[in-house]
């Protein structure tokens, strides 16, 4: 197993108290698997993704265990995580467009970074050139300043740099959210190619866009209000979702070829609960059409079929 996460809890400190942004996540990602991580804004997916590599200022590790390739990742220890960063686990951040220092040439940034991690730039230069070529970037990019590159070019540059050391786990955090549709496709294909060529072993792709996940992910993990809702192979999620939330999500997606006059888009009424003071039991029950008495008890995330996990009393029983 490449990645094994067990009961991970990470909270956010706010002035009004701790927001329980990630409240008990348990799942596995196999070698070579691309897992999509989806859910609406604020569901905890970015918290989960970030905590696997670096907790930022406001995040507070509460409990849980993360294993990568059989070794435990000390995610609560900023210093202790350093040897793993970039080499074993890497990230293409949400802010890739501004992730490059504006006053340094791209090549210089890469060189400074690599050498600070003990990698000789000269030794890896050839591979860097090859990968730039692979994503369609000219070598001249290394001699340019970030402001001379277009948004798409910056995105691809960051992707190349982040994966340069062939990490076991790559976290792609909302990498397509800011792009137009054709660029989204290009980036999605790039991710696939990186995995197929073995540049990265497993990948967690965080996004709210299910359509992209359907194209490239092997499995999809749906989150809601800090908890895991459902995990299943991609086409199972899309064609036969089990969790009521997933069903409503899929149902609210427009279908190609269907007109508005024939079939109105329905959303999901209401909004997600507060994470500072979440309700007991299933967090979706206030909006769930299938809610019943048992739902005041929190449903466990169980495997109902081989390879399919759901946290829902209506399904599991």
């Amino acid at each position: 197993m490449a990645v094994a996460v067990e009961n991970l809890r990470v909270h956010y400190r706010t002035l009004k108290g701790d927001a329980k942004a990630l409240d008990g996540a348990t799942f596995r990602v196999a070698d070579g698997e691309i897992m999509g991580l989806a859910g609406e804004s604020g569901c905890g997916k970015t918290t989960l993704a970030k905590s696997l590599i670096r907790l930022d200022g406001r995040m507070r590790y509460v409990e849980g265990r993360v294993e990568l390739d059989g070794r435990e990742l000390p995610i609560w220890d900023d210093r202790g995580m350093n040897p793993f960063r970039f080499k074993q686990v890497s990230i293409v951040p949400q802010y890739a467009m501004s992730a490059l220092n504006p006053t340094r040439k791209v090549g210089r940034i890469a060189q400074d970074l690599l050498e600070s991690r003990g990698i000789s730039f000269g030794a890896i230069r050839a591979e860097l050139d090859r990968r730039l070529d692979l994503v369609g970037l000219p070598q001249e990019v290394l001699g340019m300043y970030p402001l001379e590159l277009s948004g798409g070019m910056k995105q691809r540059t960051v992707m190349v740099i982040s994966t340069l050391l062939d990490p076991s786990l790559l976290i792609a955090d909302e990498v397509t959210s800011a792009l137009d549709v054709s660029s989204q496709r290009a980036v999605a294909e790039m991710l696939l190619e990186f995995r197929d060529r073995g540049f990265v072993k497993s990948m967690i792709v965080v996004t709210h866009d299910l359509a992209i996940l359907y194209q490239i992910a092997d499995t999809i993990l749906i989150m809601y209000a800090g908890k895991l809702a459902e995990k299943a192979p991609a086409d199972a999620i899309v064609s036969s979702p089990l969790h009521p939330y997933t069903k409503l999500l899929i149902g609210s997606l427009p279908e190609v070829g269907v007109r508005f006059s024939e079939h109105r888009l329905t959303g999901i009424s209401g909004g997600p609960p507060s994470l500072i003071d979440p309700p007991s039991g299933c967090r979706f029950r206030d909006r769930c059409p299938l809610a019943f008495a048992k739902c005041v008890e929190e449903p466990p995330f169980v495997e109902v079929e081989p390879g399919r996990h759901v946290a829902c009393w209506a399904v599991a029983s």
Partner: protein
Amino acid sequence: MSLYLARKTFLYLVTFVVAVSVDWAIPRLMPGDPINGLIARLQADPTAAEQLHGYFTESFGLDQPLWRQYLDFWRGLAQGDLGPSIAYVGSSVNDLLLNAVPYTLALLVPAILLSYIAGNRVGALAARRKALDNSVLPLAYVLTATPYMWLALVLAYVVGFRWGVLPVSGAYDFSLQPAWTWEFARSFATHWFLPFLSLFLVSFGGWAIGMRNLIIYELEADYANYLQALGAPNGLVRRYAYRNAVLPQMSGLALALGAVVGGALVTEVVFGYPGVGSLILTAVQNRDYFLLQGAFLFIIIGVLIANFVVDLLYMVVDPRTRVGAGRA
């Protein structure tokens, strides 16, 4: 690169023309007749006063049409003649200013440079260490809120008069003449120290605060987060942050020049230091308009040159200006 430089040059040329025009125009726009004020000071009797009035009007060219006066002003400027002084009868404004400027520069240049460098270092350190931050920051705020002349007064009073450790008047001992001797050098240094310190401390506060805030901002920037996420050591991130924070600080330097010049002026007044500030004080007290106008021009030219130099340095430091996108 040339676009940035061209813009700046254009700006300074326009500023120069505007400043000189303002300098020329103000006396002519102000109510009252400066000549009469002049004559009143000379306390001449009424008949002689009228003759003097005519004489002065003609020699200052005030009977010429305005546009003619304007051109004459520029011509005089080009020839480097700023006229005679009224307060120091017999001396030319040029001579007085040229004698005073070195003293002002002796205070200004070290004070600006040292406070900028020290302020930047301390500010950057304070941004990293909470303990240092908590002690340095309030002090810096107090310093920067302190009026220059008041700190000068306090220093002069406490160190100079109460403790009697350092002298508080003049640039050197009265009994000495400027010469390349150790004695003079020592005297000069002791007289120079307090006014310099006063200027340094107040400016230091501002730079420290500025740098601290800029570094904090840079350390939270996306590129810093990315590097840290990829495991880069703090040293690398700090280096990048410092390099980036220096840029707006440099722009601030050019802009703060005008203010620190004002500080030097009032500090000189407190310490009786024979620089441009003391000269201006005398000029104001004696209504020596020529001296005032000359001093104004000197200050303007000095500030413009200094601005230009800083802009050139900025071009070296910010690579983006060379790629054509820099717009300070």
